C-alpha cells in the first residue's frame, strides 16, 4: 500500500513538474497555445458569422442564381472534410501568393501566413454551418411581426434592426452555440499546416520530452476548459435573450 501511494505521489509530482509553471515546466507554453487556439476560434467564428449571414440571405433571395450559389456553398463545405479545405486554402494560397509576388518582381516562394489561413479556414467552414442555423431561425420568426412592422411604416433597415435581427438571434443562439463548439474543435486541424496552437504545442512538447500521453491529456483538459467556459457564456446569453424576449 505504502509503495503504491509513494509511486502515485512521485507520478503526480513528475506530472506537475512537466506541465507546471516552474523551471522546465511547459505550463506557460501550453497556456499560450490555448490562447492562440481561442483567438483563431473567436476570429474565425466572427468571420463565419458575417459570411454566414450573407449566405443565409442569399439562400432566401428571390434571385435564383444567388440561391443556387449559396446552396452549392453550404452543400460543398458541409460535405467535404475540413482537412481538405485547409489544404486547399494553405497550399492553394501559397501558389497564388507566389504567382502574385512574381508579378511584383519577387522570386521564389511566398507562403501563406498560417494564422490567417487558420482564421480564414475556420471562417469559411463555420459560415456554411451558421448559414443553415440562421436560415432556420429566420423561418421561425413570426410573419405577423414583420407585417406589423410594415404596417407601422418601418423601412427595410429599421425593420431588420428592430424586428428581424433580435428574433433571429434569439432563435439561433442554441444552434450558434453548437457551431461555435465545432469551430473551436476545428482549430486543432490547423496544426497540420504548422500553426503553433494548442495541439501543435502539445505535439512539440511531447516530441522533446517523449511524454506524449501527459501532454495530449493536458491539451485535452485545456480544450475542455475552453468548451465549458464558452458554453456557460452561451447559456448566459440565451438566458438574457429569453428575458428580453419575455419568454
Amino acid at each position, binding site marked *: 500500500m505504502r509503495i503504491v501511494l509513494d509511486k502515485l505521489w512521485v507520478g503526480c509530482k513528475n506530472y506537475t513538474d512537466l506541465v507546471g509553471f516552474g523551471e522546465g515546466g511547459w505550463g506557460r507554453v501550453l497556456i499560450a497555445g490555448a490562447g492562440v487556439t481561442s483567438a483563431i476560434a473567436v476570429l474565425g467564428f466572427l468571420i463565419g458569422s458575417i459570411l454566414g449571414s450573407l449566405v443565409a440571405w442569399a439562400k432566401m433571395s428571390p434571385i435564383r442564381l444567388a440561391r443556387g450559389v449559396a446552396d452549392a456553398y453550404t*452543400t460543398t463545405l458541409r*460535405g467535404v472534410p475540413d*482537412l481538405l479545405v485547409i489544404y486547399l486554402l494553405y497550399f492553394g494560397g*501559397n501558389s497564388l501568393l507566389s504567382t502574385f509576388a512574381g508579378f511584383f518582381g519577387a522570386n521564389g516562394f511566398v507562403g501563406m501566413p498560417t494564422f490567417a489561413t487558420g482564421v480564414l479556414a475556420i471562417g469559411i467552414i463555420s459560415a456554411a454551418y451558421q448559414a443553415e442555423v440562421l436560415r432556420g431561425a429566420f423561418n421561425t420568426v413570426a410573419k405577423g411581426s414583420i407585417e406589423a412592422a410594415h404596417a407601422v411604416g418601418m423601412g427595410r433597415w429599421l425593420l431588420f434592426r428592430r424586428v428581424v435581427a433580435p428574433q433571429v438571434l434569439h432563435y439561433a443562439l442554441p444552434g450558434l452555440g453548437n457551431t461555435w463548439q465545432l469551430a473551436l474543435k476545428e482549430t486543432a486541424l490547423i496544426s497540420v499546416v504548422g500553426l503553433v496552437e494548442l495541439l501543435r504545442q*502539445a505535439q512539440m512538447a511531447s516530441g522533446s520530452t517523449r511524454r*506524449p500521453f501527459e501532454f495530449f491529456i493536458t491539451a485535452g483538459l485545456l480544450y475542455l476548459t475552453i468548451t465549458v467556459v464558452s458554453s456557460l457564456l452561451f447559456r448566459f446569453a440565451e438566458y438574457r435573450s429569453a428575458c428580453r424576449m419575455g419568454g
Partner: protein
Amino acid sequence: MIDFGFLWQAFVRLIAGLPITLELAATAILVGTVLATALAIVAHLRVPVASQCVAFFVFCIRGSPLLLQMFIIYYGLGQFRHELQSWGVWPFFREPYWCAITALVLSVGAYGSEIIRGGLKSVSAGLIEAARACGMSGFLLYRRIILPIAFRQALPAYGNEVILAVKATSLASTITIMEVTGIAAELISQTFRAFEVFIVAGAIYLTLNFIITRLIALLEYRLSPHQRDLPVKTNIEARP
C-alpha cells in the same frame, strides 16, 4: 484552361484511397452505433454510477477535438508499451489503422448516444405500458418496442452523424493512413496543384455523402409507412 488530363490522373490516384475511407467509415459507424446504443440505454435508464460515467465520457469526447483523441491513442498509448504488451493488446494499438478506428468508434459512440437517447426519450409511455400489459418485459420490450421506435425517431439526426463520421475519416491521414485525404495531401505536395486536387477529392466525398443521404432517406421512408397517405383506391381502370 482546365487540364482534364490531370484531373483524370488525380481521380485515378485518389479513388485508390476510397476503399480505406469506406472501410474506416463503415467500421466506425457499425461498431460506433452498437456502442452508442449501449451508452444511450445506460444513460436513459439512469443506472447509478454507470450513467454518470457515460455522461463524463460523452462530455470528454464531445468537448475535445477528434484529432487530439486520435493522437492520445496513437502517440500517447505508445508510452505504455510495456503494460500494453503484457496485456497482449500492443499489436492492436501499434497499428495506426486500429488506432484511427478506435478514435472514430469512440467518437461515433459518444455523439450517437446523445441522438439515440433523444430517440429513447421520444418513445411514448403509453406504448411501453401497452407492451407491459401484454406481458413483455426487459430485453423483449427493448428489442420489439422501444429500440425500433427510438431508432426510427433518431434516424434523421443520425444521418447527419453518419456524414460527420465519413468526413472524420479524413483525420486518419494525419497518422499515416493513406485514405482519400491522405493521398490528396501527397498529390498536392507533389504537384502544387491544390485547386484541381481539391475539386476531385471534394467531388469524391460529395458523391459518397450524397449516396449516403439518399440511402438514409430511403430507409426513413421504408420505416415510416404509418406517416404516408393511404393509397387511394380507384376503380376507374377496372371498368371496361
